[in-house]
């Protein structure tokens, strides 16, 4: 097995902010006492005048960002995913989504691989909470390269957006050239296959690619989709996968309720497409503290369990 290059997507975010700050003089960044973790500190050092430390007061931060946006600024707002969504849901609903404000919420520490801080800090409902809001775009980039590209796209495109990455370093999946045509709202066929499609987002994309190699050795051809945009979801691509492979696994570091798996299930139901489906995710429970790898095994969200589910799905 070749050694993987690990890069933290949070660093890619910080780096992209600096590039964007140079390009867009109206780009501003807000953080709530977590700038060292979210990496907005990189922007703060470069452009101290356009960085606003808001203290431990997330609700206030969101509404302030909406005010900044109403004056033509492009605010990027960052904190952990729990505090960036659940803690401030009404502020996002009124001042960002309902108002169609050009606010970009970029959250870190999404999912259970946050690890030892425990369930209080493991956000597994954010994609659902943001997806249910009209006007909101919801994104979960899968590696550092894609994160950088997505952050650029978020700045160029007008409208309310939410993006989340995990806490941990992540294996690099893409080279910049692989992403020349990346678009918000368009899923990517990373590897083709005909027996089933594995549609995932964020931290789960890389394990699905690993799982594909294992499956290949066992004669199962899996198509790998990186569905970085959960809303608006690439309906055409989901339908294509359903029709061409007849079996879909979705995988996300998120509750099986309301996120990517739910979005795919809704399409299959709405379009009356008969297709086998397994939704991998957190099964409607709060998890616990622990080492990330231990938790991903215990809650059945790793390569091993993708392979297991794929075999189950194809055999049936």
């Amino acid at each position, binding site marked *: 097995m070749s050694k993987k290059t690990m890069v933290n997507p949070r660093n890619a975010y910080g780096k992209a902010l600096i590039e964007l700050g140079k390009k867009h003089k109206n780009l501003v960044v807000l*953080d709530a*006492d*977590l*700038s*060292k*973790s979210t990496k907005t*500190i990189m922007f703060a050092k470069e452009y101290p005048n356009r960085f606003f*430390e*808001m*203290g*431990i*007061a997330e*609700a*206030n931060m969101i509404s302030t960002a909406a005010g900044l946006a109403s004056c033509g600024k492009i605010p990027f707002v960052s904190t952990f995913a*729990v*505090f960036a969504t659940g*803690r401030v849901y009404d502020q996002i609903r009124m001042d960002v989504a309902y108002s169609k404000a050009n606010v970009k919420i970029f959250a870190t520490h999404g999912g259970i691989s946050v*690890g*030892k*801080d*425990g*369930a*209080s*800090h493991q956000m597994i409902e954010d994609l659902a909470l943001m997806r249910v809001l009209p006007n909101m775009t919801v994104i979960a980039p899968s590696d550092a390269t894609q994160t950088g590209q997505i952050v650029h796209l978020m700045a160029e495109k007008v409208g309310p957006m939410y993006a989340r990455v995990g806490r941990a370093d992540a294996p690099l999946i893409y080279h910049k050239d692989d992403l020349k045509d990346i678009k918000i709202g368009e899923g990517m066929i990373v590897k083709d296959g005909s027996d089933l499609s594995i549609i995932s987002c964020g931290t789960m994309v890389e394990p699905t690619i690993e799982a594909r190699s294992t499956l290949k050795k066992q004669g199962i051809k899996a198509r790998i989709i990186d569905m970085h945009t959960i809303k608006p979801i690439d309906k055409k691509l989901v339908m294509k996968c359903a029709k061409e492979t007849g079996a879909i696994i979705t995988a996300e570091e998120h509750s099986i309720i309301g996120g990517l798996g739910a979005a795919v299930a809704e399409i299959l139901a709405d379009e009356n497409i008969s297709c086998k489906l397994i939704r991998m995710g957190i099964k409607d429970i709060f998890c*616990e*503290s*622990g*080492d990330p790898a*231990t*938790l991903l095994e*215990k809650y059945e969200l790793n390569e091993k369990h993708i392979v297991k589910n794929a075999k189950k799905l194809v055999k049936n």
Partner: protein
Amino acid sequence: MKNYDEKTINELELTAVKIRKHIIEMLYRAKSGHPGGSLSAVDAIVALYFAKMKHNPKKPDDPNRDRFILSKGHAAPALYSILAESGYFPVDELKKLREADCMLQGHPVCYCTPGVEASTGSLGHGLSFANGVALAGKLDNKKYHVYCMMGDGETGEGQVWEAAAVASHYKLDNITAMIDRNFLQIDGNTEDVLRLESVYRRWRSFGWHAIEINGHDIKQILTALDEAADHKNQPSMIILNTVKGKGVSFMENNVDFHGVPPNEMERNLAIKELTLLEKKLEAAL
């Protein structure tokens, strides 16, 4: 007002050192967690559990117990080791902090650990929860007292001030809140991150009885707790002037030890310093 003799104070100081040693060992083993804010909070929580609160570790659900709510949930190691040393669960459990399938979660959870009253970790909730417990106490004519500890950075949360208004409006004199005034949060000094200025004047202006003391002086803590408990018709706030990382020289006032555990060398050094202090206190006993 009660007078505390030297021996009582000395014993509590010794307990506080023991708790600090637990904190260092726990975080070293877990390879994650929050040393700074755990160490600064120790003395007040020790005074509460070992001298002030009416509580029975064998009956953690006693309806008449005094309650302590750790709003700054990241200081869980301080609370856990004090609960263990009080007898709520075996001290050996402390070794498993933050491991899967363990009762000691990274941040407190009310149903996972005996003695933990409220699930915290998202800052800013604890005082509201304490208000609820205090209102129930008034409704039920119970004599219990409710304690709540917050961080100074934590009081940036608007919810804290909503709770401050409610406690004052309902004259919740069965609440004593405390602020661990260590002047540090994560991004730096509280006055640089989001200026607090006079914490004392803020709480006074919200209708609270405010007391400001040295948060590492056990005698001052006990005296302030007595004054607060006796104060009628107003909730009381004790501002604990503290040092983040207190008791470990290289962690003191060092923002880098907010959320980073000690490595092996740092752990050895910390334990050495604390053991020296322990010996000194034992000799004086």
